[in-house]
């Protein structure tokens, strides 16, 4: 019953043109391709490739951001790895955040998403409530947290005092400032929570039904069905969290500055990292070096190291992600 239309005109259009004509069409197609690609290509060159190559170049100079750059070889990298005492503290703080924050952010988002996936009545409202904090601007959220966790006048410690507990110093204690920042980040991790929730809701229900028929309990179902199915999304969450932690800047600089009693929101050099450099992350020190100490060359060297570390983490996890996807594909 299917009618096949025979169109000579169409045949003519799709048939390969001989000689120069074919080449002209191909060139014209390429030209159009370039025209359509150009907005992206220009953006890529101007905002990514150029800064990347310029950063690599400046990392080998003593560029101060104002004068012309002078080539100094690997001096910046030597100072970075052997001379700068504060960068070690900054690297430790960032590594702490990468490990603790990544694990807790993914686990917390997964936990909240798992609960939300089971909520029957008012599920939409709860999802909105859990997602809303991620929309609060980082500076406002940090200011709020510093107030809420203020050891003397904050509501958390006031509440603790009412039940006879002498609350901790939170952002004013070098041992608790990073955990306090982690709490702030967890509170605002609604985006990842929504992504994981979508993945959870996408797990085929018949798998659970089959498992139930086989006598599998809730934990076994979660371990054998849920986790393997959403593994690619969790890996994405880990990559996303690692990059987030490696770039941790705004919350750290605002929390340190405000908790120190300073009126300078963006922090002056002396209170950056308060208390006791415990909130001094690698990107914060990079910014200080580039824009306050006029060591733009050194800051570029730090940026190169940060890029390499981020790239390595991402590449490693993408390999895992692909592996997980292949496993998933083979299973389905």
């Amino acid at each position, binding site marked *: 019953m299917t009618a096949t239309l025979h169109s000579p005109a169409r045949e003519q259009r799709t048939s390969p043109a001989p000689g120069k004509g074919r080449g002209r069409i191909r060139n014209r197609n390429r030209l159009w391709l370039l025209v359509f690609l150009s907005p992206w290509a220009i953006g890529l060159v101007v905002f990514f490739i150029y800064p990347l190559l310029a950063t690599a170049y400046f990392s080998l100079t003593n560029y101060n951001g104002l004068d012309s750059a002078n080539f100094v070889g690997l001096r910046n990298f030597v100072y970075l790895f052997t001379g700068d005492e504060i960068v070690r503290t900054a690297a430790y703080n960032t590594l702490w955040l990468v490990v603790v924050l990544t694990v807790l952010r993914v686990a917390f988002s997964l936990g909240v998403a798992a609960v939300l996936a089971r909520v029957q009545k008012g599920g939409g409202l709860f999802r909105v409530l859990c997602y809303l904090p991620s929309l609060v601007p980082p500076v406002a959220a940090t200011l709020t947290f510093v107030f809420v966790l203020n050891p003397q006048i904050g509501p958390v410690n006031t509440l603790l005092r009412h039940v006879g507990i002498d609350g901790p110093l939170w952002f004013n204690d070098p041992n608790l400032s990073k955990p306090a920042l982690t709490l702030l980040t967890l509170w605002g991790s609604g985006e990842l929570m929504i992504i994981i929730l979508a993945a959870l809701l996408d797990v085929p229900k018949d798998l659970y039904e089959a498992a139930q028929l086989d006598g599998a309990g809730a934990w076994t179902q979660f371990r054998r069905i849920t986790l393997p199915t959403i593994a690619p999304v969790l890996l994405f969450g880990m990559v996303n969290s690692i990059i987030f932690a490696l770039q941790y800047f705004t919350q750290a600089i605002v929390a340190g500055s405000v908790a120190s009693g300073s009126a300078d929101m963006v922090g002056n*050099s002396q209170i950056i990292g308060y208390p006791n450099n415990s909130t001094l992350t690698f990107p914060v020190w990079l910014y200080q070096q580039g824009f306050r100490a006029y*060591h733009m060359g050194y800051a570029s060297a730090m940026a190169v190291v940060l890029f390499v570390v981020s790239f390595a983490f991402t590449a490693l996890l993408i390999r895992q992600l692909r592996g997980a996807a292949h496993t998933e594909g083979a299973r389905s």
Partner: protein
Amino acid sequence: MRARLRPALILVAAGVLATAACTAGGGGSTEPAAAPDSSKPVTVTVWSNFADRELGVLKSTLDAYHGKHVNVTIDNQGSQDDDKITQAIRGGNPPDVAISFTTDNIGQFCSQGSWQDLQPYIDRDKVNLDDIPQAVRDYTQFNGKRCSLPMLADVYGLYYNKDLFAAAGISSPPKSTDEMLEDAKKLTVKNPDGSIKVAGFLPQWAFYAYKPQIVAPSFGAQWLDKDGKSGLGKDQGWQDLFGWQKKLVDFYGQDNLQKFTAGLGQEYSADMGFQAGKVAMAIDGEFRTAFIADQVPTLNYGTAPAPTSRPELYGGGYTTGTIIGIPKGAKNPGAAWDLIKYLATDTDALVTLANGLHNVPSTKSSLSSPNLKLGDQFKPFLDIFANKNLASNPASTIGDQYLKFVSDFGTSWENGQVTDLPGGLAKLDKQIDDAKALGGK
């Protein structure tokens, strides 16, 4: 495909490197530009970090200048900090006149020529720099290169709460640091649980105005050795300062102090520790008088020079201030200089600004002007400014980075993480010198 891409990538990389190498290059002219002809209209752009009321005070002074030079229109733009000014210089579109609230970046501004050398203008117009105190002349230049002039100064002294002093039976402010230590202990009131209710004096590094550069003059502490290198380890003043500070921290207890300061208000809020009556003594700038008048006018307080470790140092104090200059690439440098000369050296202009902004006028002539109306509590700051022991911290090519190193060291010292003070200070010198060397050729 790869073979075709390679030349293109090489071309892009070469272009990038060439562009990068040329970024922000070039230098400014050292020949003084002539002031514009009075018949020729010119617009001078002025950038400062003033805002709201303070920007209005500056505007009134600029209007007075415009009244005298009707051909000069002034575009007065506020909320422009050093980062923005530097970005504008890098971008090749700076203002004609830049006003900075901090002297931290003067080392870079002068050494790299991002602010133009004013000496040719000063020589041409025979400006008398002797009318500016030596400490102020020092913080507006770097290594003999003068790329800025002072436009008002900040001077730091002792604020003390008279009611708390009376309650503790203390009749006058301390003059020596030993007296201050004893007074601080007497003035401190603790709660039944041992926590601090009222602190005599807060000795935590970088909290409010307790910063190394502000406290150093009280101990005669010197920053540099005779070779221009960091000399904290070789100077007895620093050991005296850190030793004195540690005694006070130990008196309170580090955790107790941390908990108390965490509950105090922000530096410029109405419930700032001293303003709220929770701190009996504070070292702060003369501008605090304006905050108190505005936020807690009933506060019964007095002001005096900061106590010193040696009697011969008493009467002086720390000064820093607002600086003004011509950025590299300014379109109207001749007109800019004329305005800068007015704002930095004209007595009437400085007095108007000082009265409006509650800062210290930065020339000796303006200090004695009968038109200064700043109140009795401001008077000690004018005296400190005129004192021979007025001091500032040295400009550096690494901005205020070395101050952070000193502050960090101070925190480690007060926490007990550093126990060998002379050894720690020697290590600190090396840290500062290494950071400075990083920017060397």
